């Protein structure tokens, strides 16, 4: 599929915002949804909606087949060995919290270490902070290189035999950095720790192979990869999941309920208490079909191209600084920047008046902002429906912003 054709599948992009054709450059926050996903949700609610795993009637069977069918699509998408390893949850945050609360509480003891990095999103910091406080464990941060990358030497220095958990984002939502997860996993395993991967910014953009990475847990969200909000996935190795206790109890996750004791269903359902996110899973399945049709390697190539082009033309703007790796091959389609002394909020408002949507703020990564020594930045992020003309509009908007504020500074 060519970009123009891809773009035509996203009805939301065909509109004017503040009198200008919309340029959506905030996909790292949430992606837009193609008509295939919108139709899948509509079709599910119009024809197949019923509760799952309750057998007997036809709609119930259909809904169950669709829900479990989506699980198989996810399994293939990340190359898990079995659908038992694919748990449907609300999103990356819920998935990481589940690992912290279930695996963490059972395995982390006083004086043990949990290792994360300075670039993590709040959702991959706070669950570990809470766990460390509760268990009397030590939370350690891996420092970053000058260009916002992580070196394996620093990982080796931080991970010790006391480390029980290493948790790291695959792709940074601020710097765009792609982290060497496979190598870090190896270091974690050499020290007897489990490896948790925050894949929220990776799953939409790269081919994920959990067996090749050999990570123990992998979390991602549907809404950043063309799927609906409210659906996400936790992958975990079967042996680990089997030994973990659920954190939510109630309907759907039980095998037998007695007056004073109950037993759980087998994997993956023991972690899916309550009526599951059925329509969300169906929508995620449709999103995976859509992404597969374009091809993940194609998407990754496109992102690098977008990043390279953006960095190229944006660096021609006087006073504009770009954060993160300078080599576009080392980053996904995310470009975070600041324009002179103009505050990113002001930049974002001026761009919005030109129909261009970017993110401004701390991007849920306050420790990283501290490391970058700034309180806020602006971020443009690209996805399958963006092309060079969107970046040209951004540059034009940035030049206007600069001009607009030039009287003041």
């Amino acid at each position, binding site marked *: 599929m060519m970009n123009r054709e891809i773009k035509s599948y996203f009805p939301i992009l065909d509109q004017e915002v503040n009198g200008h054709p919309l340029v959506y450059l905030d996909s790292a926050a949430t992606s837009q949804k193609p008509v295939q996903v919108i139709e899948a949700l509509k079709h599910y609610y119009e024809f197949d909606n019923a509760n799952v795993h309750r057998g007997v009637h036809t709609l119930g069977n259909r809904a169950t087949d669709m829900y479990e069918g989506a699980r198989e699509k996810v399994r293939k998408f990340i190359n898990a060995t079995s659908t038992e390893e694919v748990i449907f949850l609300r999103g990356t945050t819920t998935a990481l919290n589940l690992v912290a609360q279930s695996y963490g509480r059972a395995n982390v003891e006083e004086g043990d270490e949990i290792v994360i990095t300075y670039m993590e999103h709040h959702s991959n910091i706070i669950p570990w902070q809470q766990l460390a406080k509760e268990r009397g464990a030590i939370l350690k941060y891996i420092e970053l290189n000058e260009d916002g990358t992580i070196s394996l030497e620093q990982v080796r220095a931080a991970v010790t035999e006391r480390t029980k958990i290493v948790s790291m984002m695959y792709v940074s939502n601020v710097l765009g950095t792609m982290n060497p997860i496979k190598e870090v996993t190896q270091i974690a395993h050499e020290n007897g720790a489990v490896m948790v991967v925050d894949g929220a910014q990776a799953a939409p953009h790269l081919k994920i192979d959990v067996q090749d990475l050999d990570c123990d847990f992998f979390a991602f969200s549907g809404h950043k990869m063309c799927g609906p909000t409210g659906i996400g996935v936790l992958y975990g190795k079967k042996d680990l999941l089997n030994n973990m206790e659920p954190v939510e109890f109630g309907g759907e996750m039980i095998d037998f309920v007695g007056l004073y004791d109950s037993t759980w269903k087998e994997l993956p359902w023991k972690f899916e208490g309550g009526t599951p996110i059925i329509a969300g899973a169906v929508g995620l399945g449709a999103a995976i079909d859509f992404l597969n049709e374009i091809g993940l390697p194609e998407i990754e190539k496109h992102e690098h191209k977008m990043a390279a082009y953006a960095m190229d033309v944006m660096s021609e703007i006087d006073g504009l600084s770009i954060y993160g790796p300078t080599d576009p091959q080392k980053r996904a389609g995310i470009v975070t920047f600041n324009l002179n002394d103009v505050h990113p909020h*002001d930049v974002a408002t001026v761009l919005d*008046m030109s129909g261009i949507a970017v993110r401004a703020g701390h991007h849920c990564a306050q420790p990283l902002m501290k490391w970058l020594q700034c309180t806020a930045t602006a971020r443009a992020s690209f996805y399958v429906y963006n092309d060079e003309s969107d970046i040209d509009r951004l540059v034009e908007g940035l030049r206007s912003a600069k001009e607009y504020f030039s009287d*003041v500074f």
Partner: protein
Amino acid sequence: MSSKNLDQLYRQVIMDHYKTPRNKGTLDNDSVNIEMNNPTCGDRIQLTLQVEEGIVKDAKFDGEGCSISMASASMMTQAVKGKDVDTALQLSHIFSDMMLGKEYDDTIDLGDIEALQGVSQFPARIKCATLAWKAMEKGVQSEGKS
């Protein structure tokens, strides 16, 4: 670009307060000290107030944020200095109504603050403008209790 709309937001007087903030800094220790931030965007303000016998004798602010948040803080300190606590709270109430696009009491001279009226047209920026005012409310109220 719709610079006409932008001009409604970034009025000259706002940019002037941003560029040369009034009452920037901190008062010494026996003043009320309030720190507030806007967790969604990272704006941060430290406000120190000297309140004596129900009068805001002095006010200073420090912090970092966008033009709207910093200009609003500058204007706020200018407006409440020398006013009694009730008047300061009344001004804050009027300001809040103004931000929400409601009818507001225009019998009181708002001075420079009036320039922030355009912010009400930019919903995402209202929180920037109200941050300093929230800090002031908290400050004078905590002083009243002690």
